[in-house]
């Protein structure tokens, strides 16, 4: 029972992390059709920003680093949108995707050139790495926070999308951008907001990724975002609820694999999970909540 509780907490927090990232990907994709391969490098950027502020300005209090992490990722996401993705707006999806892919390689290598391959440590708040004991179950604080923050962030996002004008415009843009523009909503604002939100969610994820790893390196963003992509595909690419569901499914699957697989096979975890996802997509190509890909055939 305790074991079960511990593992489900594990699954929830990991799933929450994937959900945060997958949501960011899905929001940008739904509004402008961009598959943002540079999403992971936003995490890396946030990590380096925290490292530089901590090391360069001598700020030792990790509590002050948290807003730095989140804010820098938001600004960086909006910066990328203006500099890199504006020129390819309206281009075919392949163009946007490859641009993002190129941007991702650029960011990684700039980090490599100027900061180096070696991982740099970032101070984390002490209480995040502690464990709490509830009854006889020990749970890392970071997991509780991650789950709670994910839930709150998703709730806020839902309110934002349902209650505010710009939120409604974004939901509408996900269906039909040109009509939204005809209604007098500026596409620039919608897209900038989408990037800001995706950056905010990635910024939250950055805090937790760093709390677990304690250090930043140029390629740290790749694995979490690959998982987020897979989560988004499981849920149905471009669907926001799908992104959350996909993230949770992936988190649960990963933790279950960890429990089930014997020590000697542990390294194969990701291979098993991705293969399982492949089989799922064979049966249900559109993912859980997506729309069926159209090949113009009778189904």
């Amino acid at each position: 029972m305790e074991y079960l509780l511990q593992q489900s907490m594990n699954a929830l927090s990991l799933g929450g992390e994937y959900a945060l990232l997958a949501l960011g990907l899905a929001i940008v994709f739904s509004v402008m059709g961009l598959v943002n391969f540079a999403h992971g490098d936003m995490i890396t950027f946030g990590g380096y920003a925290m490292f530089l502020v901590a090391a360069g300005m001598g700020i030792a209090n990790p509590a002050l680093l948290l807003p730095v992490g989140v804010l820098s990722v938001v600004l960086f996401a909006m910066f990328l949108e203006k500099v890199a993705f504006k020129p390819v707006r309206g281009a075919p999806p392949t163009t946007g995707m490859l641009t993002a892919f190129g941007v991702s390689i650029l960011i990684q290598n700039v980090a490599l050139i100027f900061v180096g391959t070696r991982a740099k440590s970032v101070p984390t708040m002490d209480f995040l790495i502690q464990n709490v004991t509830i009854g006889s179950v020990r749970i890392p604080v970071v997991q509780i926070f991650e789950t709670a923050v994910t839930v709150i962030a998703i709730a806020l996002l839902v309110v934002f999308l349902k209650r505010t004008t710009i939120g409604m415009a974004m939901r509408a843009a996900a269906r039909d951008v040109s009509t939204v523009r005809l209604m007098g909503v500026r596409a620039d604002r919608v897209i900038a907001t989408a990037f800001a939100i995706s950056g905010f969610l990635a910024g939250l994820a950055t805090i937790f990724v760093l709390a677990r790893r304690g250090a930043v390196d140029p390629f740290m963003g790749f694995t979490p975002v690959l998982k987020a992509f897979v989560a988004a595909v499981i849920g149905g690419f471009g669907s926001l609820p799908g992104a959350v569901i996909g993230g949770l499914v992936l988190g649960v699957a990963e933790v279950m694999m960890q429990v089930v697989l014997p020590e000697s096979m542990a390294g194969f975890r990701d291979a098993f999970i991705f293969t399982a996802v492949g089989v799922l997509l064979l049966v249900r190509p559109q993912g859980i909540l997506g729309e069926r890909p159209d090949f113009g055939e009778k189904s």
Partner: protein
Amino acid sequence: MMIERRALVGAVVLGLGIAVAGFLVWGFAAPYHQRLFFTFLVNLIAVVGLQVFMGNSDITHFGHVGFMGISAYVTAILATPVAVKRSALASAPFGVNTFELSPLVAVVLAILVTLAVAFLVGLMMVRQAGVAATIATLAFLVIVHVVVMNWVDLTRGPRAFYGIPPKATIGWAVATAFGAIVLARAFRDSKWGLQLRASSEDVAAASAVGVPIRKLRFAAWMLSAFIMAVAGALFTLFVGTISPKSFYFDLTFLTIAMLILGGMHSVTGAVVGCVIVTAGVETMRFLESGPAVAGMQLPEMFGLTGFFLGLVIVLSMAFRPSGLLGSDEIDDIWHRRRLRKAGVEVS
């Protein structure tokens, strides 16, 4: 497969260009440059193989290097002498350390294994819409890498696999590159290639006129995997030592940048991109090591090569998204020039 004469001539001319370069390198170049040229040819074959799927179906493919890796490792496992394997793969499964096959047989088996894997992945691939398909290819690359890294008994895991007989020669590589170019052109300009390209531009219209999109996409996928498998086997039999890193992101970035710069809808573009990016990457490698240029000591800048590749991709996409050659093949360019000379107005 029926292929237009003009396309065939174009492909052969392109292939002959490679052959002449190969002959010159084989005859006159220093061993270092011979190695460089061989690597260039392997990359060229890989880029052409990538073009077959990506250029015709318009689905970005990040998993092509995975096929190279599978083929390379199967070749290595089968062709390496027992004497080496007895110590290097002491606890290998399936008794692979008790026999050795001639390189040619090993390559044939490696290609068959790769095609079998491609078949299974392809079943899933052809059912996906573009974006999900691309992510699936990336996940496939990670699967291959994870398996090679962790199946230590069979692949030596992250450590280098050494002692593979270096039987491949420049001649073989040139012949393979020639074959790959002709094959890619034959597919691109066949009825099937044309139909697949049409479907990538307008799914509804193409299927309305009866294009079997999934079948054609599957065919392109398998042909692409076949060419990648040959490239992987060739690479292994030349360098003699491989490791999982040889078939991961570095090579993926490199080949993608080559194809994008040249123009992914054109086989000629694939070749042109490969030549330019190879030249660029070699320059960057030189600068990366912190050389003294004109009496000035440059700093060591690890990461410059990757930076260059990223820049190539971003700039291509911003200024010339369809690449240097767009959808033009070498013979299209000639043909247009001839028409223009004859006074025909061409767009």
